């Protein structure tokens, strides 16, 4: 194979691969639309729409959970971060994986047993319904919209790059296309359609990753040490490339930032609403447990393979070619596919198109899950239980959830289009931080602390939410940094990019303080119901 100098994926030069990439995108879109229509026909009751009829098997849900969780940030982001920063990129994936143990040991089963459709069901179980539902709905929608925005903007960047689209109108059109597709998936297919889309995506993503990993390892005769050594040498950074510190080790502040990120990642997963509602799609708590175990196996295997992808990209491609294509390394994985197949060969083009289509599928499946979580919470928590005080009929609620889907879709398209040139990748980490600060403390206190009261729930949700979002607003993520969302202004005073180290303890503290300072007595009868039900499944839906 001849050495390659040119930047293959630079805008415009990808045009020769365009027809193939577009065809594969189109095949995936058509296939998922067929699934959606089929699922829509079987979606009649509220339990069908919100929870896919609760008839998925543990393995199916484990696949769908993986499909919901492995976002473009983990596929493209981690591979890219490893390709550019070596070992530090790998640190992310560990936090993302270990986090699942919190969900497994403390959250998945009790949630399945005591809730119906949303995270708010569990948070409000023994509390005054309206204020707690409002808080849970607010935090669900905030977390999901942040996450959604990052995915939409990522889709715009990625697809424009892969198809060689540089015009503003083209990027807006892609964001709009993603938005329209997710509205269609969710409003027609509900949870059943979304679950199947996520399962298909998980299978595609895992197969694509196995293929590229195999080809990379084959090139190095399955000698991992050789792969790492070549990557270190080619990166120009030597042994430092294989050690922690290239991305986060520069200063005391950046080290603190890394600790903050690490805590947010490990505690955030079990508070992400779009993940939590997946546990309602299986018939029992035992099945929810098994689906988490499947997910841990699938996601863990996937992250192990991203090591080969990231270091493989570093070993086989010039650093300059990676950063020329995308400064954050987000196209390292598709580039690797092209190089491993042979830059001027048809096989290289096929691999590039396949991995690009997989990345596109990844984004679509994740945005569908996020849209479903936020529209479900809007319809079930806010519309049915707060606005209509629990008196809405199932039919009215189903109408509300479809309208909420359209509304959230349109808002995301508008925000995604506006944010298309902003650096919004940091929003995913922020979503994890908010989930860990506002949702996780409330979930854990609700399930395990007898004395916890409505006031405690409200203080921890709003306290965690406001502090997490507030600190980010005044952090280098938003202003005062060349990589900020608004690089030209500077109103930052909080030094860290991730608020977790402050906002997570604050969320826990507020839940405790709100409870001990509250005048109301906890509802002991309701807690008895929740506790017995969450551990035994008595009366579970």
């Amino acid at each position, binding site marked *: 194979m001849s050495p390659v100098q040119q930047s293959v994926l630079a805008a415009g030069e990808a045009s020769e691969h365009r027809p193939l990439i577009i065809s594969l995108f189109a095949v995936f879109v058509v296939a998922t639309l067929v699934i959606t229509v089929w699922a829509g026909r079987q979606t009649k009751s509220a339990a069908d729409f919100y929870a896919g009829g609760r008839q998925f098997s543990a393995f199916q849900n484990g696949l769908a959970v993986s499909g919901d969780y492995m976002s473009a940030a983990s596929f493209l982001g981690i591979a890219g971060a490893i390709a550019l920063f070596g070992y530090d990129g790998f640190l992310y994936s560990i936090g993302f994986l270990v986090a699942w143990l919190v969900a497994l040991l403390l959250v998945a089963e009790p949630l399945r047993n005591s809730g119906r459709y949303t995270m708010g069901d569990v948070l409000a179980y023994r509390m005054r319904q309206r204020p707690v539902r409002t808080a849970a709905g607010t935090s669900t929608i905030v977390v999901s919209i942040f996450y959604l925005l990052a995915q939409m903007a990522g889709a715009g960047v990625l697809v424009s790059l892969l198809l060689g689209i540089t015009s503003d109108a083209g990027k807006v059109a892609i964001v709009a296309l993603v938005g329209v597709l997710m509205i269609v998936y969710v409003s027609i297919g509900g949870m059943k359609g979304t679950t199947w889309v996520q399962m298909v995506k998980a299978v595609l993503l895992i197969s694509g990753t196995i293929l590229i990993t195999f080809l990379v390892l084959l090139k190095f005769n399955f000698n991992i040490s050789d792969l*790492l050594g070549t990557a270190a040498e080619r990166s120009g950074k030597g*042994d430092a490339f*294989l050690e*922690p510190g290239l991305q986060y080790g520069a200063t005391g502040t950046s080290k603190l930032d890394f600790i903050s990120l690490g805590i947010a990642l490990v505690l955030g997963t079990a508070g992400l609403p779009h993940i939590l509602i997946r546990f309602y799609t299986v018939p029992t708590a035992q099945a929810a447990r098994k689906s988490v175990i499947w997910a841990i196996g699938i996601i863990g295997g996937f992250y192990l393979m991203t090591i080969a992808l990231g270091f493989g990209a570093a070993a086989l491609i010039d650093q300059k070619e990676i950063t020329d294509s995308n400064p954050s390394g987000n196209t390292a994985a598709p580039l690797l596919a092209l190089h491993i197949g042979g830059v001027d060969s048809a096989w290289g083009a096929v691999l590039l198109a396949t991995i690009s289509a997989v990345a596109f599928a990844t984004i679509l499946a994740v945005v569908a899950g996020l849209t479903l979580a936020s529209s479900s919470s809007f319809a079930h928590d806010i519309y049915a239980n707060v606005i209509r005080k629990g008196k809405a009929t199932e039919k009215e609620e189903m109408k509300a959830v479809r309208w909420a889907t359209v509304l959230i879709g349109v808002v995301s398209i508008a925000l995604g289009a506006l944010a298309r040139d902003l650096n919004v990748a940091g929003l995913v980490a922020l979503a994890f931080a908010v989930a860990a600060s506002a949702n996780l403390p409330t979930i854990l206190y609700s399930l395990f602390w007898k004395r916890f009261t409505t006031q405690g729930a409200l203080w921890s949700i709003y306290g965690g939410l406001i502090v997490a979002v507030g600190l980010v607003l005044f952090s280098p993520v938003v202003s005062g940094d060349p990589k900020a969302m608004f690089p030209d202004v500077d109103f930052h005073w909080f030094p860290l990019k991730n608020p977790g180290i402050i906002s997570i303890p604050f969320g826990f503290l507020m839940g405790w303080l709100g409870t001990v300072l509250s005048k109301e007595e906890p509802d002991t009868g309701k807690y008895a119901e929740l506790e017995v039900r969450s551990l035994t499944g008595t*009366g579970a839906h």
Partner: protein
Amino acid sequence: MATDAPPPSKTEPHSPSTEEFVEVQQSAEFGELRRAHRSFAFPLTVGFITWYLLYVLLSNYAGGFMGTKLFGHINVAFVFGIAQFVTTFLIAWWYARYSSANLDPKGEAIKSRMEGGA
């Protein structure tokens, strides 16, 4: 695990009242189930979070140690990272085994008794 449970009947299961829930919550049998869950899950959660934080802190502040080469280009940091994967898989497997042996039978027994209305 429902060996002793009656076959699922076509009729709706009994919905226990709040009093029944309170009574069960205070029973020794339920106390045993709660203890079996908490005494496993809580210390293990503290354990794996500590283990993970140790890894984060070493990555941050013990660069020299983490960079020590073990064989070829494989260093301590790499092995430590892989070890986090391995412990995660092992804990998941351990919990699955523990819960199906120690939690599920107790939970099922309480559930079938309560929903049977006895």
